[in-house]
């Protein structure tokens, strides 16, 4: 007999969403319990910062450069209409440090490092490596999950800082070198407009995004079905859920900081 799959009714979908939220919360608590032990194993942690951070560096730097150039071009065009093209340095710095830097870096991180984390852990599950550790009385949460979570949490703010610097260089390249904005004006406007509060905002956003992206990646990988399709779905869910949550949390955090 052919089974007819009916879509879940709304109340059940809501319950399922709440159940998953609870499961992620419990997973996070268990994960946080293992983090101090992982911090005492710096070699594992450094390896994961390298995997998540250094290996994302090229894509983050290239994206930062191009986005900075676009900001420089669009910003110059817009400001020139109001006769304030000298404010380009200020506009580019604030938009990059407060918004574009943390958000775009987090989206890139979710697409590059998040998917790699989810699929790596998912494949370790599918090939019994996680079960083997568990059978050897080694908690995979401590050895596999916690170092990857912490690695992502530390790597994203560093990547964001690099993205911001390269982005500002890109904006300067277009605004100053191509459009003729005066170099001293560009940098002095930036210096006077950007305060510590703006930098804090960017750092806090990147820390929150780093925690969310890494948590979703390790959760999805750890709970993926041990099949090729299951690992693929876990990877897709990591990217989609991370992207939606990054944009949602960006709005919430912006509202809090304003």
């Amino acid at each position, binding site marked *: 007999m052919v089974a007819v799959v009916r879509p879940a009714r709304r109340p059940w979908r809501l319950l399922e969403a709440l159940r998953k939220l609870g499961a992620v919360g419990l997973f996070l608590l268990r994960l946080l319990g293992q983090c101090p032990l992982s911090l005492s194993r710096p070699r594992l942690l450094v390896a994961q910062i390298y995997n998540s951070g250094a290996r994302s560096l090229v894509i983050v730097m290239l994206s930062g450069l191009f986005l900075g150039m676009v900001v420089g071009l669009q910003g110059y065009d817009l400001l020139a209409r109001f006769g304030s093209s000298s404010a380009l340095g200020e506009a580019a710095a604030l938009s990059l440090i407060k918004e574009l830097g943390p958000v775009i870096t987090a989206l890139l991180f979710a697409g590059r490092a998040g998917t790699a984390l989810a699929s790596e852990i998912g494949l370790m599950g599918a090939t019994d*490596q996680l079960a*083997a550790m568990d059978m*050897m009385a080694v908690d995979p949460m401590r050895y596999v999950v916690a170092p990857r979570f912490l690695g992502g949490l530390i790597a994203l703010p560093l990547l964001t800082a690099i993205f911001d610097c390269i982005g500002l260089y890109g904006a300067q390249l277009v605004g100053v070198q191509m459009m003729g904005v005066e170099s001293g004006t560009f940098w002095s406007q930036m210096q006077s407009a950007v305060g510590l509060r703006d930098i804090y905002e960017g750092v806090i956003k990147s820390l929150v995004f780093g925690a969310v992206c890494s948590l979703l990646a390790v959760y999805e990988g750890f709970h993926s079905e041990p099949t090729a399709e299951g690992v693929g779905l876990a990877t897709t869910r990591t990217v989609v859920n991370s992207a939606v949550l990054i944009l949602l949390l960006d709005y919430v955090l912006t509202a809090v900081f304003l």
Partner: protein
Amino acid sequence: MNAYPGQPGADVHEEPLVDVRDVHYAIGGHAVFSGLNLQVRPGAITAIMGPSGTGKTTLLRLIMGELAPSRGRVRVFGQDVATLPRERLYALRRRVGLLFQSGALLTDLSVFDNVAFPVREHAKLPEPVLRELVLMKLQAVGLRGAAELMPSELSGGMARRVALARAIVMDPEVLLYDEPFVGLDPISVGVIRRLIESLNRTLSITSVVVSHDVQEINSIAHYAYLLSGGSVVAEGAPAQLKGESAQVVQQFISGAPDGPVPFHYPAPDYFEQLLERPR
């Protein structure tokens, strides 16, 4: 060697290392075990046989405390594994080794580091001592020369021997083998069989071998259980099982394609199904 119930010299009061009593377990509403009973006596090679899908691997997962039975008890070293808190379960698992069917080697570590992994996690041995220990275990499985290779560079038989070296590196009291002969060439099968025997004999490791390979089991096991339909249908020395008259035992031992374990998966009438209009 400890004798088993029914064998001359058997001590019926001896505490079994693994004691499975009236275990019920179901997956997705399908009963895998319904009243399973078996015991593993110390120092011997106990085989658990049965057709595919009878829950042999599930039984190992119950013994290791990864799964919990819905009814009944699984006791290992006298402890009910399903009720143990994580720390005590991990303490128990350090006394038990498990050889996975796939080997389950950690793919980002070399052969040497795979074997050293449990020692590095549980004991703070100086590196020179650890090196000697790992090389000794690799020598025991004949792969000392492969210490620097990565798991991707190993054949199936070599991977299983490395996994065996890893399983014995902590000197476990009990070693569980999940289908150790599956997918191996005859030479590798012979190597694994000899290793199981020699580890049992020289290190006095109690061994539980889950397999459906009747010929290999006959050659190494001291006692065997045959599972079918969620419980034990026959038990005894492998030679005794050959004489069992039960149809399911005879079908399994002779490898008959049809019998109590049917060739066809349950399906509606073939003729009627052919005449049915496709939906």
